[in-house]
C-alpha cells in the first residue's frame, strides 16, 4: 500500500470528507421508501406480543419468554436519571410491528426480495449482492487474498430482509442470520444465551425490548475460528410512528474472533420515533470480539422537531479467561441518545475497551458512556470518550468503573475529552468509580476545550473553508477513536463528523 493512502485514511480529514461537506447540506438519509406495509395495531399488550411471536412463527417457549418480560415491564417505570429531557412517551401510541407486505412470505434467497427493498439499501450504500463489497473499500487490498468482504444482515423496520454470504460463512462454521431465523433453526443456542448477558429484568427499555423485539442479528463463531469476513447489520427505520426493537446476540466461542459492524439510519419525520435495542455479546475463553457502531439515526431538525429516541442496552460478557471485547461507537444521530455499552470482565486477564465519539448538534441530547465491571483477576479496561457539542445541544459522558474485591491487580484507564463549539451548548462528565480491593488501579483524566477561533483562522488563512476547517479540527480531536474503527467505517465516520456539524459555526 502506498504511504499516501495510509495518510489519507488514518490521519485526520481527507478529500472525501470535504466533498461530503460541500455536497450534502442536510441529513443525507432522510428520504423514505414508498412501500406497502403491514402493521400490528398500535400499542403494547399481551395480544400484540403474541402477534409478533406468531408473525415470526416462534415456538411456544419464546412466546412465553416474551410474555414474562411484558409482565415485568408493566411494573417498571422509565428511568429518569439521565441528563436528557424529552416529552413523555406514550408507549401505547406506537406501532410495535411493521413489515413490508412483500416480506410476509419470507423470500428464500436475496433474488426473491422485493426490488424496492433492495433499491433502498443500494441507495443507502449497502450492497446486498454478494459479488459486491462494502462501498468505499474497493482497492483496499490489505488482506492477503486481495479481497475484503463484508457480510450484511439488512433489517427494515421490524424484519430482516436478507443476509449475505451465508453459505460462505457456513463453510467456516460461522452462523450469521436474523435472530428470528436463529430462534427456529438454532433454538439450543438461543435458549442458552438469550438474556444471559442482559437479563429480561435489566432495565425498563431492555425489558420492553425482550417483550416486543421483532428481529435483529444472530452470530455464532465456533471454537478456534477466526471469522473469514467482517459481519455487519444495517438497521433502517422506514415506517412512521413505528418503534424499532431489535435484538442482537453474538457468541464468540473459545479462541474465536469476529469483527462486527452496525449502521443505522431513518427518514426525516416531524414526530419522534422510538428505538430500543438490546445487544448481547458472549465472549468465551481466549476469544475476541470487536463491535463497531456508526449510529446515524435522524437527529431531528434544527428546531428540535422529530428525530429518533435511542434507548439502547449493549453489554458484553467476557466469560472466559483472556477474553477480549472492544466497543467502538460513533454517535452522530438521534434526538436523544441513552446508551452505555458495557463490559463484564469475569474471566481472569480479560480485557474491555470502549472508544466513543458522541456528537450533539442543534437540539440533540446525548447521555452515553460505558460500564466496566472488573470481576476477574488481572483484568484491564480502557475508556476513551470524545464528546462534541454544538448548537444548543447537551452531551454527557456517564461512566462506571467497578473493581470487585476478587479483581486483584486490575487496571482501568479513562480519558474523557469534551469539545464545545459555540457558547450555548453543554458538556458534562459523570464518572462513577468504585474500587473494592487495594491492588487495583483506576486512572481518570478529563478535559474540556473549545474549538478555537485562532485554529479556524489558521486553517482558513491556508485556504480551507470554514466548515472544512471545523471538520478538520474536530476530526483531529477524535483521532484516537477514529483509529480504532475498521478502515471503511473510519472513512464514513470522518464524513459523518463533518456533516453532523454543519451550520454549527458562523
Amino acid at each position, binding site marked *: 500500500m*502506498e*504511504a*499516501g*493512502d495510509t*495518510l*489519507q485514511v488514518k*490521519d*485526520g*480529514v*481527507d*478529500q472525501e470528507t*470535504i466533498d461530503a461537506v460541500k455536497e450534502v447540506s442536510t441529513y443525507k438519509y432522510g428520504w423514505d421508501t414508498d412501500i406497502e406495509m403491514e402493521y400490528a395495531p398500535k400499542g403494547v399488550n399481551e395480544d400484540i406480543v403474541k402477534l409478533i411471536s406468531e408473525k415470526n412463527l416462534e415456538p411456544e417457549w419464546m412466546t412465553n419468554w416474551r410474555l414474562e418480560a411484558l409482565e415485568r415491564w408493566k411494573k417498571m417505570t422509565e428511568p429518569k436519571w439521565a441528563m436528557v429531557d424529552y416529552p413523555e412517551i406514550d408507549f401505547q401510541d406506537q406501532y410495535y410491528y411493521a413489515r413490508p407486505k412483500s416480506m410476509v412470505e419470507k423470500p428464500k434467497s436475496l433474488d426473491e426480495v422485493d426490488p424496492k427493498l433492495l433499491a433502498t439499501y443500494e441507495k443507502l450504500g449497502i450492497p446486498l449482492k454478494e459479488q459486491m463489497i462494502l462501498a468505499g473499500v474497493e482497492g483496499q487490498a490489505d488482506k492477503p487474498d486481495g479481497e475484503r468482504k463484508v457480510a450484511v444482515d439488512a433489517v427494515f423496520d421490524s424484519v430482516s430482509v436478507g443476509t449475505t454470504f451465508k453459505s460462505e460463512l457456513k463453510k467456516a462454521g460461522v452462523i450469521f442470520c436474523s435472530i428470528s431465523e436463529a430462534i427456529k433453526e438454532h433454538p439450543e443456542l438461543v435458549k442458552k444465551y438469550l438474556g444471559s448477558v442482559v437479563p429480561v429484568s435489566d432495565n425498563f427499555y431492555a425489558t420492553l425490548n425482550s417483550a416486543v423485539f421483532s428481529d435483529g442479528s444472530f452470530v455464532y463463531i465456533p471454537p478456534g475460528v477466526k471469522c473469514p469476513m467482517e459481519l455487519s447489520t444495517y438497521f433502517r427505520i422506514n415506517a412512521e410512528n413505528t418503534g424499532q426493537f431489535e435484538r442482537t446476540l453474538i457468541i464468540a466461542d473459545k479462541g474465536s474472533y469476529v469483527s462486527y459492524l452496525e449502521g443505522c439510519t431513518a427518514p426525516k419525520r416531524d414526530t419522534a420515533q422510538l428505538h430500543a435495542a438490546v445487544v448481547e455479546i458472549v465472549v468465551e475463553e481466549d476469544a475476541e470480539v470487536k463491535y463497531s457502531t456508526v449510529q446515524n439515526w435522524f437527529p431531528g431538525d434544527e428546531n428540535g422537531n422529530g428525530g429518533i429516541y435511542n434507548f439502547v442496552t449493549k453489554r458484553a460478557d467476557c466469560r472466559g479467561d483472556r477474553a477480549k471485547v472492544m466497543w467502538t461507537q460513533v454517535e452522530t444521530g438521534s434526538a436523544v441518545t441513552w446508551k452505555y455499552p458495557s463490559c463484564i470482565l469475569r474471566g481472569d486477564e480479560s480485557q474491555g475497551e470502549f472508544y466513543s465519539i458522541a456528537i450533539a448538534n442543534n437540539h440533540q441530547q446525548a447521555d452515553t458512556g460505558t460500564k466496566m465491571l472488573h470481576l476477574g483477576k488481572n483484568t484491564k479496561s480502557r475508556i476513551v470518550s470524545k464528546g462534541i457539542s454544538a448548537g444548543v445541544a447537551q452531551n454527557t459522558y456517564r461512566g462506571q468503573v467497578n473493581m470487585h474485591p476478587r479483581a486483584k491487580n486490575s487496571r482501568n484507564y479513562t480519558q474523557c475529552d469534551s469539545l464545545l463549539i459555540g457558547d450555548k451548548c453543554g458538556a458534562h462528565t459523570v464518572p462513577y468509580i468504585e474500587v473494592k480491593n487495594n491492588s487495583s488501579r483506576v486512572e481518570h483524566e478529563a478535559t474540556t476545550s473549545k474549538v*478555537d*477561533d*485562532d*485554529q479556524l*483562522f*489558521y*486553517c*482558513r*488563512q*491556508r*485556504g*480551507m*473553508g*470554514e466548515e*472544512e476547517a471545523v471538520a*478538520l*479540527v474536530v*476530526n*483531529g*480531536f*477524535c*483521532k*484516537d477513536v477514529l483509529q480504532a474503527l475498521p478502515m471503511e467505517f473510519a472513512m464514513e465516520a470522518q464524513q459523518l463528523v463533518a456533516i453532523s456539524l454543519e451550520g454549527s459555526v458562523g
Partner: protein
Amino acid sequence: MLKINNLHVSLEDEDKEILKGVDLTVDAGKVHAIMGPNGSGKSTLSYVLSGKEGYNVTDGSVELNGDDIMELEPEERAALGLFLAFQYPIEIPGVGNMTFLRTALNAQRKARGEDEIGATDFLRLVREKAAALKIDSDMLKRPVNVGFSGGEKKRNEILQMAMLEPKICILDETDSGLDVDAMKLVANGVNALRDEGRGFLVITHYQRLLDHIKPDVVHIMADGKIIKSGGPELALEVENNGYSDLLDEAS
C-alpha cells in the same frame, strides 16, 4: 501587486483606531520590510490583510493584483495567493502536519478551478520541500505544531509557504524566538522562494533578520502610519540609533 491605499482600521470591540491611513505598494519580485516599535500596528496590518475577524476597516482599500480583497473571506484571499506566516503558529492536536498541508493545498487548488494533487505527487513534493528546510519525516507526521520547538514552528510556516506557492508572502515577526542557526534556515527558505512573480512583506522588530533576507525597501511604521520609507540603509539606521530619532523627525 499588493496595493494598500489609505487604510484605516479600528478594533471591533472598542472604539480604538489602530491603523491611521497606511499607504504601501509591494511590486512583484520585491521584498519590503516593515519595522517599528511595539504597538505601532504592524501585526494588526498583517491580520487585516489576511482577513482575521475583530477589526473594522473604516476607510481605504487593499488590492491584490487588481482585486479588492477587503470584502473577501480569509480562504478566498488565500486562494488568490495571500499567505501569512504567523508570529505564533497555531497548534491543531490530532491533525497530521501532512494532512493539514494537503487539505490546504487542495482547497486552494479547487477554489482556483485546478485539479487536486494526488497522494503520490503530494508526497514527493512535500519531502523535497521539507528536506531543504531540514524538516524530517517525523515532523511531517506529527500533529500540526503540537510539541514543536519555536524554531520548528517557524520552519513549518516556511514549509507551508513553499508548498502553497503564494503570490504575496507576509511574514509576521518570523525571527522572534529564533536562534541564529534557525534564523538562517528560515531565511534560506524565504530566499529560495524569491521570484520575479512573488512579493514579500517582512514585518520585524530587528535589523538582524534583514541581514539574511535582504529587503529592497524598508518602511518605518509608528502609531498606525508609515512614517518613513527608504532603502536597506534605513534598517541599519534603526539598528544604530533606535526609533526615537525617526519618531521625533516625524512629529
